[in-house]
């Protein structure tokens, strides 16, 4: 019988205090501000009750990478204990304006992509950055993601491909406002396989809100997403996603943290885009009419891909492409961790964790580095001279839809 690891009420008493989670925690190796997953999670859990003080100051430094869950040999849901504790602290003490702003990035997306490139110039404007660091503690030396004038949403209107075979696509805010080229690549790769993408009504998945402790608003967004996604499932479609964090939020966290049990039917239907394509390949249905893509591609595994428990399908897919050499970097958390890296009190931690990624990237040939997560891709570009791409781009090039390096 399978042991279901992610039973949300799995008792912290399963912890045997082995400290394997501490060994693999990216934060504890670079700062003593975080007490570590074992102490903040199962150790403190014994002192927590519903009406009690959450007993926690250091939990704010948890990046939420969830590697502790992955490595725990006793099946303790450590990160869940940490995230719940973070929520409890925030509910008691309130959420700082800075974190509220960061977790509502999707709202700025609508305005910023409408006003890009003016918005981009403004985000690059030094006095603005200095001021936002001083007033809001938003790190001034970090590059903000650029906003695109044509959002993916807008581009979809010109999408005309029709097929009997359809799949629903949850693209997420980053693809929508900051990097529509990922969405376009997904759609075009599907088209090469005779599959039409349909787009259920969607908004931000809510993970930034959950990560900053705002369950109430996360639930609001989740409900709106569920309406669209569940009706897609009713229509008989699988749902693919190209952002591993969005996928994890919808597939797992809607139930775990937001208690939205109506999300249950999504579990079997939600597929990461490479997972979906690899399953096609396993059924001999993937178009493998590839041209040669002669290059070395570094590949960084996002933490949330590890915790999705679907293996590393992007590596398998890229390995099908003739001429392409995939170098998995062996790196764990990149340090960016979504909105975490934008906070000036966390910036040094983010940089320090990212050093390992930087070292490995510097050692690897080629000018491209792939990763399925947008925050990891930002960090790759922060920490190296490599151009960061979603792995779907390798397929885009292999099908000859765009020249190698094109978007």
């Amino acid at each position: 019988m399978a042991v279901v690891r992610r039973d949300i009420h799995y008792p912290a008493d399963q912890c045997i205090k082995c400290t394997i989670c501490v060994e693999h925690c990216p934060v504890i190796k670079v700062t003593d501000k975080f007490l570590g997953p074992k102490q903040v999670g199962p150790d403190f859990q014994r002192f927590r009750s519903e009406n009690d003080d959450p007993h926690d100051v250091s939990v704010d430094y948890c990046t939420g990478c969830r590697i502790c869950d992955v490595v725990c040999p006793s099946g303790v849901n450590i990160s869940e204990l940490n995230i719940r504790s973070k929520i409890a602290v925030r509910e008691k003490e309130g959420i700082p304006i800075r974190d509220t702003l960061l977790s509502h990035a999707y709202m700025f997306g609508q305005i910023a992509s409408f006003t890009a490139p003016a918005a981009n110039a403004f985000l690059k404007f030094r006095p603005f950055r200095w001021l936002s660091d001083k007033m809001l503690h938003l790190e001034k030396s970090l590059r903000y993601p650029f906003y695109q004038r044509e959002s993916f949403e807008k581009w979809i209107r010109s999408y005309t491909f029709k097929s009997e075979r359809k799949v629903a696509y949850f693209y997420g805010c980053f693809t929508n406002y900051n990097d529509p080229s990922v969405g376009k690549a997904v759609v075009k790769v599907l088209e090469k396989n005779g599959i039409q993408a349909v787009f259920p009504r969607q908004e931000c998945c809510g993970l930034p809100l959950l990560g900053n402790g705002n369950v109430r608003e996360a639930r609001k967004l989740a409900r709106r997403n569920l309406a669209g996604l569940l009706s897609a499932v009713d229509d008989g479609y699988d749902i693919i996603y190209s952002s591993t964090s969005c996928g994890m939020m919808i597939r797992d966290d809607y139930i775990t943290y937001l208690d939205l049990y109506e999300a249950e039917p999504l579990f079997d239907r939600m597929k990461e885009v490479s997972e979906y394509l690899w399953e096609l390949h396993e059924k001999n249905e993937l178009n493998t009419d590839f041209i040669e893509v002669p290059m070395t591609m570094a590949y960084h595994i996002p933490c949330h891909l590890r915790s999705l428990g679907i293996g590393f399908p992007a590596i398998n897919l890229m390995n099908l492409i003739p001429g392409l050499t995939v170098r998995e970097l062996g790196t764990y958390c990149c340090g960016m961790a979504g909105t975490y890296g934008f906070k000036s009190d966390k910036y040094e931690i983010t940089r320090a964790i990212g050093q390992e990624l930087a070292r490995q990237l510097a050692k690897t040939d080629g000018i491209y580095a792939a990763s399925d997560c947008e925050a990891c891709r930002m960090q790759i570009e922060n920490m190296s001279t490599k151009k960061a791409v979603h792995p779907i781009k390798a397929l885009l090039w292999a099908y000859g839809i765009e020249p190698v390096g094109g978007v």
Partner: protein
Amino acid sequence: MNYDVVVIGAGLSGLMAAVAAASKKKRVLVVARGMGIITIFTGSIDVFGYWPIDEAKPLTSPLSGIQRLVRKDPEHPYTKVGIDAIKKGIGAFVEAAGKGGVQYVGDLSGNILIPTAVGTVKPTCLVSSSMAGGDMKSERNVLICGFSGLKDFYPDYMAHNISTFEMEGLKLPRFRARTLNVDVGDRTSGLNCLTLAGRLEDQGLLRAMTEEVYGHLRTGERVAFPAVLGIRNSRDIHKKVEQACGVPIFETPTLPPSVPGYRLYKSLEDTLREMGVHMLIGYDVYNPKTFGRRIGEISIAMGKREKRVSGRAFILATGGLVGKGITGSYDRLKESIFDLPVAAPKKRTDWFRKRLFDPAGHPINRAGIVVDDHLRPINKKGEPVYDNLLACGTQLFGFDALREKSGGGVAVSSGYKAGVEASRM
């Protein structure tokens, strides 16, 4: 997913099995529900410290001890593995760890006596180069340096205990302790070794530490540190501190979280990745599909998303009672994935001896899976339960790793042998 060899378990024996199978050009998957004990152990490989089990004097040579053992004890894992595979396994381990950046010293012909953080001396066979200077056969006196604020290492405690420690035929050098006051950060919560090791990769801090140590040094001493001298750059850091102090230095293993364990894990992980081995951590393994005496497939899942994995050979390296490779009810033990028979004393009252530190060890610690000379688990009739299933590591029947100080050697050599056997299937 389809592989030649599927290794279940990511501890020392599982990783060694993967190294051995991959070096025979096999497609290998390592799948485990979590990380093995490898990240939290001392990083030194005990091969054979005491034998017969209640002997108080450590063996001078693990190899000659094993040679005598295999003539006397047909059930011991070393007898099943065989001396040739033990030698090759140890060699393969040193090479694999070295490729990933951790240099091991020592060999089967001699035990090294190293001091522990609680002030005892233990025999071990292979130590990382950072610990080699701790050999107690050297008469050089020792200055033990601890760090103020480090919660897991107390130099005075270690020095005091070791001054009262007795071992037949061993004359220990003199130990004295100093607690360094170098500012290693916030001391209110107590620093652990891993965090400190990360901090000491900072050049400025390392320099400040070295200067303070130098100030405490007396002529003719060597310096002991807790094992915190860097995580990924530890060899460079070791060299730098040694040069600056002008005397030999060495690391002493500490309580978990263990830095040498983490270094070893990372080095083996790097080596396996270079060899093209796939690793999936965080997955439960269950529901094996068998055809007569062959295992065809297993299910793996993190949470509810199940994947099927097929393989030509399967290696079980899931650990013993602590690692949950063997689980139990009140009076019966069972293997957790394939429900293999587990040999243990019948009655629970026979599991333990009366005294906790009985020199003969507790019978429950010898419980485990009985295997044949190919390391295939066997049933009561002595036949292999499955033709393509092998077992290795802590879960094997017939040895007491704690008393004999043989856990690392059994893990490395049986893992290696299982990998070689699997690649022939």
